[in-house]
């Protein structure tokens, strides 16, 4: 009898870990658990490269210039009082909005042309038109810098034949803003082109044929068929490009370094100047943090529209 009790106790003790390991196996076997572990490396990478710097810059923004004392929000209130800050806000908005509008417009128009090129030729054109996007922007911007040179550039030389110029491309506030936007449009339009081309290919030809029979001309087809069918992709590419353009650094840094008289500074270039070049890292962090609420508002508006349409469909 005693033997049996001992046996039963041993059995009971043995069964408990088995039950535990079974439930662990069950948890491990769940799709969501597997998915979590598969994405864990990426989550860790994002945490390391994005979240840590983000929180660190939040922390930095609350320190004094020597980074020795906690000053709360006084860096922010200081910025609000500076005229240059508001100029940078205005310039960043003008730069981002104008560049994105032109990139989207040019991308849309060229995508239509490329879409109508038959077969193999289309592949060649697609490849060629993507060149600006695949060249490292620092390198291509250097080429643009030479093109904009007031004395020896190809632009002013060509314009001289028409009795125009010389134009101070990077020396005058208006032309300097024009130039940085132009280079950004040149660099970014191929991204829109390729996204819109993919979207155009997904619109069934029969919709256009039905519209032709319904009496639509080419413009009505674009307005009533193409644009509504591409609305989501337009919204998402616009948002994506708005974020990237708003945070642009390299083009302005290489072409104008924010000049003349800070009139082409964007958030990123001004933050660099204030934080690194003027050795006020907390104020630089503070400037760069201002991009977050502006972009967040834009993201909420654009993505809300995408979600709404997604639910309708």
């Amino acid at each position: 009898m005693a033997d049996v009790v001992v046996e039963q106790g041993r059995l009971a003790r043995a069964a408990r870990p088995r039950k535990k390991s079974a439930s662990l196996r069950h948890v491990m076997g769940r799709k969501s658990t597997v998915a979590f572990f598969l994405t864990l490396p990426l989550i860790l990478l994002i945490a390391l490269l994005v979240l840590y710097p983000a929180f660190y810059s939040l922390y930095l923004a609350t320190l004094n210039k020597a980074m020795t004392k906690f000053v709360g929000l006084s860096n922010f209130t200081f910025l609000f009082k500076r005229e240059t800050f508001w100029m940078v806000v205005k310039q960043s908005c003008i730069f981002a909005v104008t560049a994105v509008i032109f990139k989207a417009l040019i991308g849309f128009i060229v995508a239509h042309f490329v879409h109508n090129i038959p077969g193999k030729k289309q592949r060649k054109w697609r490849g060629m038109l993507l060149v600006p996007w695949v060249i490292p922007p620092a390198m291509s911007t250097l080429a643009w810098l030479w093109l904009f040179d007031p004395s020896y550039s190809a632009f002013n030389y060509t314009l001289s034949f028409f009795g125009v110029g010389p134009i101070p491309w990077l020396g005058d506030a208006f032309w300097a803003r024009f130039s940085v936007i132009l280079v950004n449009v040149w660099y970014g339009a191929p991204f829109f082109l390729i996204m819109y081309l993919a979207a155009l290919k997904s619109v069934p030809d029969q919709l256009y044929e039905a519209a032709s029979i319904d009496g639509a001309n080419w413009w009505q087809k674009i307005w009533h068929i193409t644009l509504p069918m591409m609305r989501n992709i337009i919204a998402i590419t616009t948002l994506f490009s708005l974020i990237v353009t708003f945070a642009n650094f390299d083009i302005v840094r290489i072409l104008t370094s924010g000049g003349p008289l800070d009139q082409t500074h964007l958030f990123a270039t001004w933050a660099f100047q204030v934080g690194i070049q003027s050795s006020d890292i907390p104020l630089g962090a503070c400037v760069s943090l201002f991009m977050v609420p502006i972009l967040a508002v834009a993201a909420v508006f654009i993505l809300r529209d995408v979600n709404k349409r997604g639910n309708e469909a």
Partner: protein
Amino acid sequence: MADVALRKVVKRYDDVEAVRGIDLDIADHEFIVLVGPSGCGKSTTLRMIAGLEDISDGDIMIGGDVVNDVPPKDRDIAMVFQNYALYPHMTVAENMSFGLRLKHYPKAEIKARVTEAARLLDITDLIDRKPKQLSGGQRQRVAMGRAIVRNPKVFLFDEPLSNLDAKLRVQMRIEIKKVHQKVRTTTVYVTHDQVEAMTLADRVVVMNKGRIEQIGTPNELYHKPATRFVAGFIGSPAMNFIPCRLEDVGGTLQIRLTDRIAFPLPPARATRYNSLPRSEKLLLGIRPEHLTESHAHLGPGVETFDTVLDVTEPMGMETLVYFGLEGTPICGRVDPNAGAKDGAPMRLAMDLNNMHLLNDETGVVL
């Protein structure tokens, strides 16, 4: 409404001729069905009538006017596509009224026409839905509604029922017929389904390899096919073709199918085929419904023979029996109570009054 005429219409894609000079006259109010296998040029012909494909040669006329170079929007036609081609971002009402809105019709008239078409097609409750919220059959109705509201000269249907399941296809087929009875607009309908063609059409145009094989009423095509292609294409299961030859035995013309099976021809057929050379390679065309079980009271011209069945397919109202005659697979239709069984011998009766004789080389029905 208007008549449609095609004169020597050709469509070439590089070196390939998809449509090879077809002539077709479609009368006002007529329901014409273009039928044929994939790649026969039927859809291309329809798209040329619509103006969605350029014509390589020939003329297309709608209401007496040559429309070769007239864009689709000015041809006053409406088309229903295979995959409906409804605008996914528009509601049913917006889809139906799109053409009218582009032409700046008064709002009241647009509303009246859409309401009337929706009532006709029984989709009044769906008017505010988007295409994704509709079933296949409902989408098909909306596509038809979009065509009807425009009150065009010609309706063009491009395999409109192909995406529907079998039951819904039958239902929609009847709906289309009812709509045509009410609206009476000239209609050109493309399908590869011969049942659709036979049930819907006033006249059927059978196409093959870019050419018209035969134009006729469904009954004409069924009973008097002009070629082997038409004979084989129209009717389900398809007509049997059995190699045969004619021979004279004791002053009677008879048809020999195998060494042991030969039948005397009925007098009418004998007169018709008497002038044919006896050496000519021929095919006997006989539909499965004219190969039935033998019974005691067979009429004149119905001949019996014994065979062993390979396979039987009980269909409920009939049983299809399959057997071979010297390697040629044959299908017959027998009564479900006739005792047909797989691998069993059976005596069958062939109704030679409904036979067709074809030239084996040219495929022409003699």
